[in-house]
């Protein structure tokens, strides 16, 4: 899962001064200390990033040497219906994931933040999906969703015995559900942390004003969680754009192209069709979209930070 994070806390100028060594003394650690980090990051992250852009203009089949191909790849790839479908699917996955996971995680987070003892026990269990690797989850679900021997047979519910993974109309929804199963626990943890930070005084005041549970949720909890929502959404959206592992093992992009989202399309184009140039074009698209979304969401949360969450307390 690729990671994006809320903007770093920019320290106030005064703090910065106090931390820096007083002028006239040593100028702090030499830049060499950051050398290894820079070298490793540069060679294995930055160089490949530039490499992807360069490769997108080249033609390489994995066997010989890359050969210059100009803008050929770009035209071909962007016109390719499979890639266009992949972009459409990625958009669907991103939006629907958000629509499914955010409310569930939010409500769960609020639920888990409650002080009842049984909720603490439940929280420990809720965390379990996060312990599994994506491959493990995908494999388990494949067995679970087997139309002949899976969950449907177990519970005796025929509706559950459909061809979940083999039917092109159902496969995408299955994928969305399994992704949600994996990641709702994570986001609910974020929301739980967020809710725990809301001061009790706000709720007490509301109670005095006669606000019901629902009203408290809508007028206090939700607004106070704005920052958490942004963080969780950023992670969720950027994660959805680049999600690969689970879908690869669960459906491998199939049936047909029903679950062939962009990262999967890139992998299959590169390592099954051996059209590395075209795959690099898709990769560049991924990077550009990822960067744009990250920056946009950063800006959004950046402007939010002007207002205090504690207004009116």
């Amino acid at each position, binding site marked *: 899962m690729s990671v994006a994070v809320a903007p770093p806390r920019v320290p106030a100028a005064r703090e910065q001064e106090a931390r820096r060594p007083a002028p006239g003394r*040593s*100028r702090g*650690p*030499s*830049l*060499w*200390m950051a*050398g*290894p980090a820079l*070298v*490793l990051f540069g060679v294995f992250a930055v160089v490949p990033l530039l490499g992807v852009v360069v490769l997108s203009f080249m033609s390489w*089949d*994995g*066997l*010989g040497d890359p050969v210059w191909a100009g803008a050929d790849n770009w035209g071909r790839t962007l016109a390719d*219906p*499979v890639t266009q479908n992949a972009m459409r699917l990625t958009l669907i996955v991103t939006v629907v994931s958000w629509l499914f996971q955010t409310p569930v995680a939010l409500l769960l987070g609020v639920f888990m933040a409650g002080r009842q003892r049984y909720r603490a026990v439940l929280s420990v269990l809720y965390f379990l999906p996060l312990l599994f690797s994506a491959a493990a989850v995908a494999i388990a679900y494949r067995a679970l969703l*087997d*139309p002949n021997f899976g969950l449907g047979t177990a519970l005796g519910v025929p509706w559950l015995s459909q*061809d979940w*993974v*083999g*039917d*092109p109309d159902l496969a995408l929804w299955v994928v969305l559900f399994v992704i949600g199963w994996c990641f709702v626990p994570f986001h609910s943890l974020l929301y739980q942390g967020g809710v725990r930070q809301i001061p009790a005084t706000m709720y007490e005041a509301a109670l005095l004003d006669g606000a019901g549970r629902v009203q408290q949720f809508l007028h206090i909890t939700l607004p106070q969680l704005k920052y958490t929502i942004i963080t969780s959404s950023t992670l969720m959206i950027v994660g959805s754009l680049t999600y690969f592992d689970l879908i690869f093992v669960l459906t491998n992009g*199939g*049936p*047909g*192209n*029903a679950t062939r989202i962009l990262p999967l399309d890139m992998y*299959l184009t590169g*390592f*099954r*069709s*051996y*059209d590395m140039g075209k795959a690099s074009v898709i990769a560049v698209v991924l990077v550009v979209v990822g960067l744009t979304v990250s920056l946009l969401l950063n800006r959004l949360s950046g402007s939010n930070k002007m207002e205090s969450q504690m207004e009116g307390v």
Partner: protein
Amino acid sequence: MTLRIGRRTGAVVAAVSVAALLAACGGGKQPGGPAAGGDGFSAWALTGGTEDMFRAQFDSWNSAHPDDEISVEWFANDAYKEKIRTAVGAGNSPTLIYNWSGGTLADYVANGNVVDLGDSTAELDERLIPSVAENGKIDGTTYAVPSTHTQPVVLYYNQEVLDAAGVEVPTTYDELLDAVATLKDDGTIPIALAGQSVWPELMWIQYLTDRIGGPEVFQAVLDGKEGAWSDPAIVEATTRIQELVKAGAFGDSFGSVNADQNADTALVHTGKAGFVLQGSWVYPNFMEAAPDLVESGGLGYTTFPTVEGGAGDPDNIVGNPSNFWSVSADASPEAQESAKEFISTQVLSDDAVQDLLDIGAVPPIVGLEDTIEEQADTDHPSFVYGLVRDAPHFQLSWDQALPAAQSQALLDNLSQLFLGQIDPEQFSEAMDATL
């Protein structure tokens, strides 16, 4: 001064880190192991099918050459296809490269990944069925040699299932459609199809196209002629495929049936399905999983039905002429020598031939009729042998014949065709775009 010490120590640390990095690079292929490229004599082979024959060959080599043992890594079919090409491209391939000839071999040759095998295959060449051996030659030079049985695609059926439903073995396409209807009413899946693996679906379009239009149709595709995929024969073939799907010929959940698990043949020998169109490589699976059915004659096999008004010779076959060994050009000279000697002494040796016959597989060797007659199980081998020997044309599976990108597009579009997501015109259009 603090500053100078800081800078100097920092520089030292940085230098050490970089040095460690370079050492790691130089240290290179540590847990890469002998089965990877490099110096040792190595091979990657496929599990299932004629695995035992290969194992016997490797063992035989190892006992004859204890100081030059071959190290083998075993793969399932789909997993193998996933990794081999990247391995070759990375210069990390095994010495003996298992392949299906066709487009991939052509790519290997074009990029200088495999060596000329002419001198070590002279003797073997004389014993091979020519049409099979031809596949390993590019412009007259031998780059790949057949290593195992020849595998035409055959229509297998469970006689008991057919009898129970009152179905006769079809010889024409229309009879097949009738059989499908009858079997469906009887509650069985008429034809098992491993839709999840996708490549089994190729057999249908291959045979239908050949029966309708003859081998020239696909040859045009191979030659890269513009619009070759829109040939009326292909359009009719894809139309018939959708006709079969709509008639419920393949059941409801063929999209989840996987060939690597032998799920499609399992449907037939457990009586849940009547027919399966598969390569003769599945016969050993039947023998292993349902020996009673095979022995009692309950497993039937026949040629693909003809299509009325079709131009193709009904004796043409499709499938894999064989599987081949090539020798990696990136292997060390010693390993290459070992590989060549392995080829001349072990491949399709008398022992290997017998091993194949024992499991009902048919080696692509000329003049085997008498030997086959002597076997315990003669019907299937003589049937297959006759097919291959007498076929005017043996079409290599399309996904192997085509270059990688086209082959992948073919599989993708074919899968969508079977799933009803695209229609015949869209299929031809999409495939034409790849030419």
